[in-house]
């Protein structure tokens, strides 16, 4: 095809620019600008004012960050999310890999099982939270079954158990999605490797450890990363399951605190600083996890 000077400048199909324009405007308005605005707010004394009012919002350096880092309630929320991740991430990896491995075998009722595991994932958290409240109430079904073994105070109002209960809830809710990821990854593990392992006399457990686990390592990296990001996003579950992060902040998450400080109490600058620190924390965690989980990749 002949390439005129105009083609060289605009490309062969300039109409493509028109096709992506709404998307680019969207990215600029809903991602890029707010991203910059968040960082800007976190370094200024930013507060809500009447629309159109001209107010002075001076640069305050790291003041908002100091506020965040010295507030025990906020520090506790960051600690809580670590507790959450320490329970949620390993549990997610072990259970979803185990269940995907079982589902991958030629087994009866496969569709039924796949549907059952995926149903909590497609259902709104607000809906299933209602049932969990009912189940884990002090006189709920779980405690009736446990009888004298039931914890006192009960699960969601117990400062030691509230965050672990939230972590278990989220693991249960999201597991189906991770099972699907592992099911896709299992298709790529070579059958020959299993045959070779069984020739060498490896039992089922040994070939799972030596063939399956290394074979799905890229998927594990992804599962760990997505589970971490989901965990850092935690809001709905502590807000509804534990009545706004109770008891006494034991299950407050950084996003919950961000909402309370930033919007309820009218300090968007502090809220933005929490957001920036949270993102930096997630990136650091992701790097560390990559080092440990993804080390044999590439």
């Amino acid at each position: 095809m002949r390439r005129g000077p105009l083609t060289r400048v605009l490309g062969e199909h300039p109409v493509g620019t028109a096709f992506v324009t709404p998307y680019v405007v969207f990215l600029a308005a809903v991602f890029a600008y707010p991203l910059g605005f968040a960082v800007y707010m976190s370094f200024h004394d930013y507060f809500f004012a009447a629309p159109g009012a001209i107010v002075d919002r001076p640069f305050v350096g790291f003041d908002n960050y100091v506020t965040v880092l010295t507030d025990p309630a906020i520090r506790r929320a960051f600690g809580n999310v670590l507790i959450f991740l320490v329970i949620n991430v390993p549990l997610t990896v072990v259970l979803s890999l185990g269940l995907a491995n079982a589902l991958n075998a030629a087994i009866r009722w496969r569709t039924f099982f796949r549907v059952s595991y995926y149903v909590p994932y497609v259902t709104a958290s607000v809906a299933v939270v209602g049932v969990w409240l009912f189940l884990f109430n002090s006189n709920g079904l779980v405690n009736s079954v446990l009888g004298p073994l039931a914890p006192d105070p009960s699960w969601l109002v117990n400062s030691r158990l509230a965050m672990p209960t939230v972590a278990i809830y989220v693991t249960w809710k999201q597991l189906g999605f991770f099972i699907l990821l592992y099911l896709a990854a299992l298709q790529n593990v070579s059958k020959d490797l299993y045959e070779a392992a069984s020739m060498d006399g490896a039992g089922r457990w040994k070939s799972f450890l030596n063939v399956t686990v290394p074979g799905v390592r890229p998927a594990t990296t992804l599962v760990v990363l997505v589970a971490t990001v989901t965990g850092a996003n935690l809001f709905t579950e502590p807000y509804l399951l534990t009545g706004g992060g109770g008891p006494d902040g034991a299950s407050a998450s950084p996003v919950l605190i961000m909402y309370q400080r930033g919007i309820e109490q009218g300090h968007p600058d502090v809220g933005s600083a929490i957001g920036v620190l949270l993102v930096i924390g997630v990136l650091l965690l992701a790097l560390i996890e990559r080092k440990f989980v993804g080390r044999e990749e590439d």
Partner: protein
Amino acid sequence: MKLKFAGLLVGAFVFLFPFYYMLIGSLQAEPDPSVGGAFPAPGNLTLHNYGEINKAIHLGRSLINSGIFTGGVILGTLVFGVLAGYALARLQFRGRGLVFNLMLLIQVVPFQLLTIPLYVLIVRSYGLADSYLGMILPFMINSTAVFVFRQYFLQLPAELFDAARIDGASELSILWRVAVPLVRPALLTGVLLTFIGPWNEFLWPFLITKQQDLQPLAVSLSNYLTTVSARAANPFGAVLAGACVLAAPAVTLFIIFQRRFISTNISSGVKG
């Protein structure tokens, strides 16, 4: 094999039981948290709880709001997402590489960082609080969907497009008459995956709707859960009835179209 089957069966019970309990609980006149309460007594079953929750939060209105919110997101994602996905897959234009890289970069920006600035901008600066547009705007184009659409269009043979171009068809009509019909089944998967997001979304509509008659069901139900429920006679029954109404559309769609939620689609969407 027997062991695996038994393990899967136990797992399925753990996963499905809360849904069974949700349905039973929503139909019980008297809440019964004992073990016996998990088995429905025919005399204790009633639709009364559905009436209660309907009186408290106007189910119909909330469902319409959820529908408008979800419909708006799906419409935006389909129209603008297909246009962008097609351009990125099939058209050579200046800045294509830049837009593509931008799209990949955006997928790693966590939404939580944007919550506060978006709230300030949309509610305070643009005055879009308590409006459908404000609800829909942050989700209007889903970058994951753009990426998935692009993958679908890339799989089509190039000769098809060359032939249509030689015939003098405009790009818009090639997209509409050639490309879209060929990937229609895949687009349905895109719609189904997009549906779950806004239908179940809580934080954003919760932040920007204070007016009860504009709130999607997830928001009105959570408000009922946190404020009113303490005073109702059978609060759990009413909450569970609302939960069933909220869960039903997504679960039904999922069961009908479960074959479309195949793992490859989802993982290609996530890998970014």
